[in-house]
């Protein structure tokens, strides 16, 4: 088994386009998923109790199922309830919803980790609820949950591989197809492993750097 670089270079445009699809779907779904997750966590914390139960069910259903199954049901089952999505929007929406469940749990723990006194101090100087959420809770929590968020982003980049089942031409799909066409299966898998590994390491490194940068904002007293 040896990597045939000639073949790879020949297919480079395809590979790059697959890489690009993987990257942008990952980034957009992570950001949207985190935002939606934040809303879910906030709604569960501040909304009425029935909303909390409903959202808990939402979160637990999404977390209790493989992404593969959810994506399949969304893409192939959606049309039966009038939700006709093209592959890329379906993949993006599926991944975002899936991510939102996990992010909401991260943020929920984050809310709890911000000392109550910090919120009370803000109440005492007259900040409104939304100002407290925006100016105090959100930034403080972000620092606290950053490591978990990076971890989640890493999990998500690997989940993007599953989008191939709904024909999204992302990296696994493209490189896998090249592997099949050229009968270079193992080579293709190797290439994929390296691509993902590098992406994950970069993400991890960025996360660690951000954490180090933010460390001075950490609590002096706990």
């Amino acid at each position, binding site marked *: 088994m040896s990597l045939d670089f000639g073949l790879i270079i020949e297919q480079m445009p395809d590979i790059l386009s697959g890489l690009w699809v993987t990257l942008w779907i990952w980034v957009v779904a992570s950001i949207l998923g985190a935002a939606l997750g934040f809303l879910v966590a906030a709604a569960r914390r501040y909304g009425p109790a029935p909303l909390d139960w409903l959202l808990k069910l939402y979160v637990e259903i999404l977390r209790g199922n493989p992404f593969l199954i959810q994506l399949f049901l969304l893409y192939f089952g959606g049309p039966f309830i009038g939700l006709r999505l093209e592959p890329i929007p379906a993949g993006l929406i599926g991944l975002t919803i899936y991510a939102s469940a996990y992010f909401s749990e991260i943020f929920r723990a984050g809310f709890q980790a911000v*000392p109550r*006194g*910090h919120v*009370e*101090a*803000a*109440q*005492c*100087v*007259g*900040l*409104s*609820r939304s*100002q407290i959420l925006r*100016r*105090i809770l959100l*930034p*403080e929590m972000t*620092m606290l949950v950053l490591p978990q968020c990076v971890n989640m982003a890493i999990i998500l980049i690997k989940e993007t591989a599953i989008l191939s089942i709904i024909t999204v031409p992302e990296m696994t799909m493209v490189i896998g197809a090249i592997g099949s066409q050229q009968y270079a299966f193992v080579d293709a898998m190797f290439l994929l492993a390296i691509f993902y590994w590098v992406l994950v390491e970069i993400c991890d490194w960025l996360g660690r750097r951000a954490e180090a940068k933010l460390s*001075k*904002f*950490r*609590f*002096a*007293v706990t």
Partner: protein
Amino acid sequence: MSSTAPTRTPHANSPEPHAATAPAVAVKGVGKTFGATEVLKGIDLTVPAGATTCLIGPSGSGKSTLLRCIAFLEEATKGTITIKGDPLGFAEAANGQRTRLSPQNIRSVRSRIGMVFQQFNLWPHMTALGNVCEALVTVRKMKRKEAEERGMAQLSRVGLEHRATHYPSELSGGQQQRVAIARALALDPEILLFDEPTASLDPELTGEVLNVMRDLAGSGMTLLVVTHEIGFAATVGESIAFLDHGRLLLNGTPREVFGEPRHPRLAQFLETYLDRGAATLL
């Protein structure tokens, strides 16, 4: 409230209190229960304006709870609290029915109260100056520059202008508490509440905070201080309130409260707090 003032001859000892001068805080029949436990059992307390009132009492007696009710961080389950005559949180109709006031009203009355916590509660993602200016900018809608000038003035009032750009994690406990005081001062509160402001500090750092508080007391600010620093209470407090098991047992000048003959509960309490063995060294 003026009814209680003469009997306790509290703060100013002034023979003729101005009719216009409502007490800074008037607490009437305040009760608070958490679930089944009754933590405050009908407290009546008048905090005179322009003076320092110290709230002392054993652990668990309800001091923090009372202070938090006055800051409206907890909602009293019974009774009313007024700030300079304005009702806080609830309006009481003639028939005793309480109705909740609007969030705006609550925020506006509360903004006349400043609070300093035992745990400082500085926001870790803002510098010292950022902590002090935050409410000026977001609540008072001041220009950032103007807010910062004002913030610096407050920081120098607590002797920390040279630490303005430091983050809380880069400050000692005493410095953090002083920033917290500056933050509370920045909004020009009519009354400043302190909940054991030195309890989380090393003995060495306690002094700097108590000194800032002494200065404030001297400047005619209204202070209500929950403290275990009996020495501070005895020397700086112009009015002392002693709480025990959710009841206000004693309230008066230090001389009235601490003087002999002492209330047996107070005597017992002082016993615990004052290191009698060490007294032989004084």
